[in-house]
């Protein structure tokens, strides 16, 4: 609109200048001023006419047209509030699901770390697993020339003792240049620096994360200089990091950072600083300006091959790959991308379903407005105008839908940021809506505008003006109608979603009944890491013995045992097995067994069935011969004959261990695993400072757990327990992926059923409304009720069978993607496919019920009277 005024003014100025030039010429030719001006005006012609022609040539500006359409669209939408609300909500759900999924992916993959110039940061990955030894770190740091610096870090559990109470937390051991390299400064106090990290054990200082400062220290501004204990040693707090900084791993939230030279105080008894063979720290480098990743990678590989020559026994063939930082080096990148892809695919399916349903709605609406459209066409509206108007209307809806979607995504993001998965590791991500999520949602809104709006727009332009205006009902055309195709498409999408969700749900049902080899009900467990608490071996063994005695005496406790870990927790260790009397297999063929170190009474407490031989006894001590109990899968490694009495070595140079008992197979890592060989060693003969206490009791689980906690506190009040809860809770972890998938697909599956119901109902109602005249004539000439029913249901049956058929075929290709989380059901399960088709058939039949009744009730006499 401003555009028009500006152009008008410009034309006026141009005509003025034209006249001035002409008058000048006329004056020069000797005309008197009055005459000169008159002649010039005459020659120019009517100014008003020129202006009008000019404006016509310009055309009405696009923006002005658009504004008019937007106003018109808003008015029509306001006129039908129910339709508008339903549409916006549906789109909000569809786009919102995608925006939420994308915001998770954004947090895991795209959002830059909150550090200076994050694009220059690279993780230096060793082939295999992305960790290095500290001596290697030193060599890379000192020999490389293309990186501005290399920092190293390691993430460890720690016991933080402040104000008398100890809590288990996770923190970084980081080199002195870590904060400097990242360019992150403390908000309170200072970060630690190179000078804090020169001498082993030299500077017991720590830097708190903002969150830890807030939640554990009440955001105390006087915190600097305060002394707390980590794993029993005093550390001085020197600073607090800014709120957004959560370390350099995207999916972990640490509580604090300590200098790497303090390693011996954090992981006592395991001094790895000078061990070249212990690869346990992550390296983070910053590229120098104008150095490409490929150049830096090549130069680091040169150093790696140097190291290979210098230390051939451990570093032969060492190779380096650089990757963006943040996902446990590049270790988690593949799984994260895979999981995100699957999530996006499901969310995309839902958006497609939403769009097809809305297309159906809008088509119905455009049919309702046929008369309106016909009048417009009769009055001379161009078809393009109609298409544009219709698209503007769906764009308005999509934009409002996108706004609703962002609200939903914001809610999901907040919930997810605060949520912790059922593990001890502080897995979490900071999920926030930034410009990327915004752009993605808007992109989806535009896409859905096109998907949703285009077909109705085209349809409306195909209106036959004359018959519509004469109120002749349009004939039911044979052949395929766009609405049939849409419902068919819905049927396809719903079949796929429904099959997926049925598979996951039935798998989950199966999972809760699977035999895990022990009875999680009625037992509780709690863990304590005595190593972190500064215990030496003698004290720790003493504690492990006394805690069992203490708890066993409590009323209500049936049995108690200690172990380094319980099956199905995250803590799984393995060793190789060499069986006595068998030829030594090739290195790659040596069997591997999971192992646990357990006390007497472990199998009784877990209610794991002893198949042969005996349990551990108090007579198995450090002095007596080594003994082990194995599971049935392990016994099969030994070949035929009685396994009890046979001997094996754990590791090539391990001591001979005699098998004294065999227990039933169970599940140890995941619920879907095949039976795996497991060796239970005697805790008395194998020391491990990590201690899981398990107790079985007839008391309610909460009370039993409290008894265990009190007993530990009586023995040593400074110990901090973790992973304490009912034993059944640890099943939450292996079931977790399946639960998430079941919840997601369950919701989506239900949504699919509703959408199909609505879609089919709409299709049938409209079809029958349009055919009322035909049905009445058929009845009048004697068609029977079954004949009419066949007529009505025929089309629905065709759409159903085509949609379900294609959907089932698609699912055969798609569902094997689910197999990692499926348990006890194959990904291509004919019963499930049949059930999904059946459900959709029932839904289709239900959707047809009312329209069919309406068709049967059509009264020819009434119809012929009125028309």
């Amino acid at each position: 609109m401003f555009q028009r005024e500006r152009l008008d003014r410009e034309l006026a100025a141009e005509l003025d200048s034209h006249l001035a030039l002409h008058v000048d010429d006329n004056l020069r030719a000797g005309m008197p001023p009055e005459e000169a001006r008159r002649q010039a005006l005459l020659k120019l012609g009517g100014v008003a006419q020129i202006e009008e022609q000019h404006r016509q040539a310009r055309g009405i500006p696009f923006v002005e047209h658009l504004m008019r359409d937007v106003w018109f669209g808003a008015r029509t939408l306001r006129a039908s509030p129910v339709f508008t609300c339903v549409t916006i909500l549906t789109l909000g759900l569809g786009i919102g699901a995608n925006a939420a999924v994308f915001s998770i992916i954004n947090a895991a993959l795209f959002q830059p770390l909150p550090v200076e110039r994050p694009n220059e940061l690279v993780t230096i990955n060793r082939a295999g697993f992305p960790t290095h030894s500290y001596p290697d770190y030193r060599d890379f740091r000192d020999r490389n020339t293309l990186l501005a610096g290399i920092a190293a870090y390691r993430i460890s559990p720690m016991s933080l003792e402040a104000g008398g109470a100890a809590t288990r937390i996770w923190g970084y051991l980081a080199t002195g240049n870590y904060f400097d390299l990242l360019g992150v400064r403390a908000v309170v106090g200072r970060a630690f620096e190179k000078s804090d990290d020169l001498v082993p054990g030299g500077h017991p200082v720590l830097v708190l994360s903002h969150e830890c400062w807030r939640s554990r220290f009440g955001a105390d501004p006087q915190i600097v200089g305060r002394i707390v204990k980590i794993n029993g040693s005093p550390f001085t707090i020197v600073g607090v990091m800014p709120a957004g900084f959560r370390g350099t791993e995207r999916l972990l939230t640490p509580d604090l950072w300590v200098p790497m030279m303090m390693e011996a105080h954090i992981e006592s008894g395991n001094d790895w600083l000078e061990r070249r063979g212990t690869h346990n720290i992550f390296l983070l480098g910053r590229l120098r300006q104008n150095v490409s990743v490929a150049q830096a990678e090549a130069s680091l590989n040169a150093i790696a091959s140097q190291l290979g020559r210098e230390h051939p026994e451990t570093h032969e063939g060492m190779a380096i790959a650089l990757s963006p930082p943040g996902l446990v080096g590049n270790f988690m990148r593949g799984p994260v991308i895979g999981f995100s892809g699957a999530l996006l695919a499901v969310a995309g399916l839902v958006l497609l379903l939403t769009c097809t349903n809305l297309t159906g709605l809008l088509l119905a609406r455009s049919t309702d407005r046929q008369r309106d459209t016909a009048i417009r066409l009769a009055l001379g509206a161009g078809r393009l105008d109609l298409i544009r108007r219709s698209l503007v209307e769906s764009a308005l809806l999509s934009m409002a839908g996108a706004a609703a979607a962002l609200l939903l995504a914001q809610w999901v993001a907040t919930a997810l940021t605060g949520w912790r998965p059922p593990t001890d590791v502080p897995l979490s991500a900071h999920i926030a809506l930034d410009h990327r999520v915004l752009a993605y949602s808007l992109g989806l809104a535009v896409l859905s505008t096109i998907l949703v709006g285009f077909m109705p727009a085209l349809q409306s332009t195909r209106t036959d003006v004359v018959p519509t205006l004469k109120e002749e009902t349009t004939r039911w055309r044979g052949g395929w109608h766009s609405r049939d195709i849409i419902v068919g498409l819905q049927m396809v999408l719903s079949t796929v979603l429904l099959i997926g969700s049925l598979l996951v749900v039935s798998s989950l049902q199966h999972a809760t009944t699977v035999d895990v080899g022990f009875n999680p009900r009625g037992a509780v467990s709690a863990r304590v890491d005595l190593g972190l608490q500064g215990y030496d071996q003698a004290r720790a063994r003493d504690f492990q013995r006394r805690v069992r005695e203490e708890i066993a005496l409590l009323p209500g406790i049936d049995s108690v045992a200690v172990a380094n870990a319980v099956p199905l927790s995250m803590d799984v260790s393995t060793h190789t097995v060499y069986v006595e009397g068998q030829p030594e297999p090739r290195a790659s063929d040596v069997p591997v067994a999971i192992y646990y170190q357990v006390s007497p009474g472990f199998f009784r407490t877990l209610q794991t069935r002893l198949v042969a031989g005996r349990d551990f006894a108090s007579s198995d001590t450090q002095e007596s011969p080594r003994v082990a109990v194995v599971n049935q899968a392990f016994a099969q490694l030994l070949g035929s004959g009685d396994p009890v009495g046979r001997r094996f070595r754990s590791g090539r140079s391990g001591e001979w261990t005699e098998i004294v008992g065999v227990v039933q197979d169970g599940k140890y890592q995941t619920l879907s695993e095949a039976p795996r060989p497991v060796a239970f060693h005697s805790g008395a003969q194998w020391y491990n400072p990590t201690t899981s206490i398990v107790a079985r009791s007839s008391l309610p689980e909460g009370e039993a757990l409290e008894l265990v906690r009190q007993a530990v506190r009586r023995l040593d009040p400074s110990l901090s327990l973790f992973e304490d809860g009912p034993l059944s809770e640890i099943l939450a972890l292996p079931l977790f992926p399946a639960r998430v998938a079941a919840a997601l697909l369950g919701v989506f599956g239900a949504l699919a059923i509703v959408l199909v119901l609505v879609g089919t109902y709409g299709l049938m109602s409209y079809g029958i409304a349009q055919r009322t005249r035909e049905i009445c004539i058929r009845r009048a000439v004697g068609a029977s009720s079954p004949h009419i029913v066949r007529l009505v249901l025929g089309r629905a049956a065709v759409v159903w069978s085509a949609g379900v058929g294609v959907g089932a075929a698609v699912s055969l290709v798609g569902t094997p993607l689910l197999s990692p989380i499926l348990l006890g059901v194959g990904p291509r399960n004919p019963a499930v496919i049949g059930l999904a088709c059946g459900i959709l058939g029932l839904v289709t039949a239900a959707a047809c019920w009312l329209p069919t009744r309406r068709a049967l009730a059509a009264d020819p006499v009434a119809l012929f009277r009125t028309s």
Partner: protein
Amino acid sequence: MLLVSNMKGSKVDVWQGTLALMVLKTLETLGPLHGYGIARRIEQTSNNLLAVNYGTLYPALLKLEQEGWITSEWGVSDNNRKAKFYSLTRAGRKHLEKEARNWEQTTGIIARFFGAGEPTS
């Protein structure tokens, strides 16, 4: 034919097309020029046959600008008057070349057509 051009129908197109060509040719010959200058030039070269109002030139100029064949810019004339100067763009030059060739072809055909009926002496 040019004189009856301001009427409806196909003749307008002929007129507009011709006028557009004249404008482009003028700008090619004389370089950047204001609307008044273009009008005078066309009037002169057509031996004052072009007896229409100067004003009709301006919608034509707008059309040419929308096509991208000319661009305009405010400047100062020889006798210090502010005026909008039009100049030929690269696309305009190409278009002019093409149209000129077409025109020569057409006039050639027409000329031969009329010439063929006359006795060759």
